[in-house]
């Protein structure tokens, strides 16, 4: 699966490590949330970069104590109709997580902009679609009514535009 970041295909430098695998030294590893919590004493001292995958029936809060130590969180869309990871992503960003937030699973073009807006900034995407289709899909709409979004395509927030000069909900850094 190609990895898409900043609207470009990039190499995936991260390795998934199962709950029973030994930890490779000094790498970029993705562990499950279960292992993260169970093996925290060990992982806290890990020499490489730490990422975690959170199943979409788990609460994002379980990661709260670890957020500052994490460089990647992977959330999943087992079906494109299963929208739980949008709220997990939003929760994590509201909790102050600033690292890479990756979407995996059944990602389609027409949900791509939504994923950006709730805070995802990397995507394991389907080979069916070409790069320029993903690029176009990330900016289908140039406006959003909601505030406090990640706006990687420069879309404008309607309410903030109408009432300029009033503090936005909470200024979000643009991802990437």
């Amino acid at each position, binding site marked *: 699966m190609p990895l898409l970041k900043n609207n470009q295909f990039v190499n995936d430098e991260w390795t998934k490590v199962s709950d029973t695998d030994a930890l490779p030294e000094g790498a970029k590893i993705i562990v499950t949330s279960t292992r993260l919590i169970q093996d925290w004493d060990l992982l806290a001292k890990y020499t490489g970069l730490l990422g975690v995958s959170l199943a979409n029936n788990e609460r994002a809060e379980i990661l709260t104590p670890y957020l500052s130590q994490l460089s990647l969180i992977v959330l999943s869309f087992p079906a494109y109709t299963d929208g739980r990871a949008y709220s997990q992503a939003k929760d994590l960003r509201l909790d102050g997580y600033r690292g890479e937030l990756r979407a995996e699973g059944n990602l389609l073009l027409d949900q791509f902009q939504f994923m950006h807006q709730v805070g995802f900034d990397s995507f394991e995407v389907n080979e069916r679609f070409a790069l320029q289709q993903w690029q176009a899909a990330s900016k289908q709409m140039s406006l959003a009514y*909601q505030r406090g*979004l990640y706006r990687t395509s420069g879309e404008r927030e*309607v309410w903030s535009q109408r009432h300029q000069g009033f503090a936005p909900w*909470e200024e979000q850094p643009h991802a990437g």
Partner: protein
Amino acid sequence: MYRYDEFDHQFVSERTAQFRDQANRRMSGELTEDEFRPLRLMNGLYLQLHAYMLRVAIPYGTLSGKQMRQLAYIADKYDRGYGHFTTRQNIQYNWIKLEETADILQALSDVEMHAIQTSGNCIRNVTTDHWAGAAADELLDPRPIGELIRQWSSLHPEFSFLPRKFKFAITGAPHDRAAVKVHDIGLRAHKNDKGETGWEVMVGGGQGRTPMIAVTVRDFLPEKEVIPYMEAIMRVYNLFGRRDNKYKARIKILVHELGAEKFKAEVEAEYAKHPAQTTEVEQRELTRIEKYFAQPSFEKMSRFAPHFENAKRENVDFARWAKNNLATHQVDGYTIVNISLKPEGGIPGDATGEQMRVMATLAERYSFDEMRVSHAQNIVLPHVKLEDTFAIWQVLKANDLAAANYGLIGDIIACPGLDYCALATARSIPIAQAISRKFADVKKQEEYGPVKLNISGCINACGHHHVGHIGILGLDKKGEEFYQITLGGSSSENASIGTILGPGFAAHEVPDAIETILNTYVKLREPGEEFLGAYRRLGPKPFKEALYAAA
């Protein structure tokens, strides 16, 4: 009325262009049906028995003459000359072609309308009291907050793939005409001692397979907190609502399975988690919207309208219509005109393009260019001078729009049923027509007083049968249509779910069964007691006995 600014215009145009692209990709095969379905549904396009069906949003049921004319134009040009007003205050067209849908959406956006989120597992068209801004008992106009929620919920990135569809209803009056207790979220306005507005937040009501009355999670939510608090409710639902079974996926099941207290605690915890938000912008936006809903410039008039009184004396039919179809307005000398789309033997909620244009003209001339669609599938002219009602009635009469049965047994709510709908298990419309013919005499209808009769052609309950004083549910038994009757439902502030009386009836037996029920009521009622009150006092027993005695 709300008017689009440059942002709203641009938003809807971009969305239309996006749909045009999606439809083209579907027709070229780039998108499969499975991939296209949720996209077309989010733009209100269904595939039904005979063609595609397009459901157009009429936000909180309010529309102008120009908008109604455009709906008529669409009916004539792209459909078969008519449309069907629905129980969600929308309109739907039954004979739509996929290849023309983008053009229709374009025509809608020309008059500041759209079909965004009239279907799909997202937040649907927000509904309110159809007498909003006009009703004498109103505390405040619920439409500004409705418009705020419409905007906030439009293409919400977080809440467009919910476990299931999600419906808001809002009332600004103590007498609930918006059925807020049988919606996923119902909001009801209150004022505190300081005169500030707050909203009672009710969650987890609904109809369908498992009808439930909503529970109150906040008695008085300050107005400035509405949007962030709704976000908290939606987030809890999106994360924890069931996705393993589509029949258990509505928020009512989550509320029920967690229990009201636990659900409330989850919402409050989510809400408390990110308290630093300022809602200054939301408040300013609400203030901006409120200006569009300022009262029209009513003339100062006397409560007594001599021409109106005269006309009633001279014309019995007009007097009857005036008695049944007019409602008390906030302002002296004005009235609310309820146009019944339920002529004898007609299809509830259907109107021809020509009738739509007639109503548009009446609204432009007599009602500050404003109309409402009610969830009971009627059209309302909200601000009419009493002195103009006779002229209006004459026009309505000439166009088969003067049925004098508003709120009576002939004013039937019915879903399209198996005549059109791919999900239906039985026909609804022929039952409505047969009942309407049986009780054609309005004098007879008046003897029965206010009765709400609601018909659904399947368990999904689009015809709101659970909350009809008399509810009829059409089912299929070994290839034969049959109909279950429930009594005692209500969608008012004292909401209740109807009780099934007993075995179902064949289609041809239904009108007689309804007559038996009504005659039982007439026999047993106390002076002045309405049908629902009598049922609540008597319980199902006497009705059951009367209905099944012969069997």
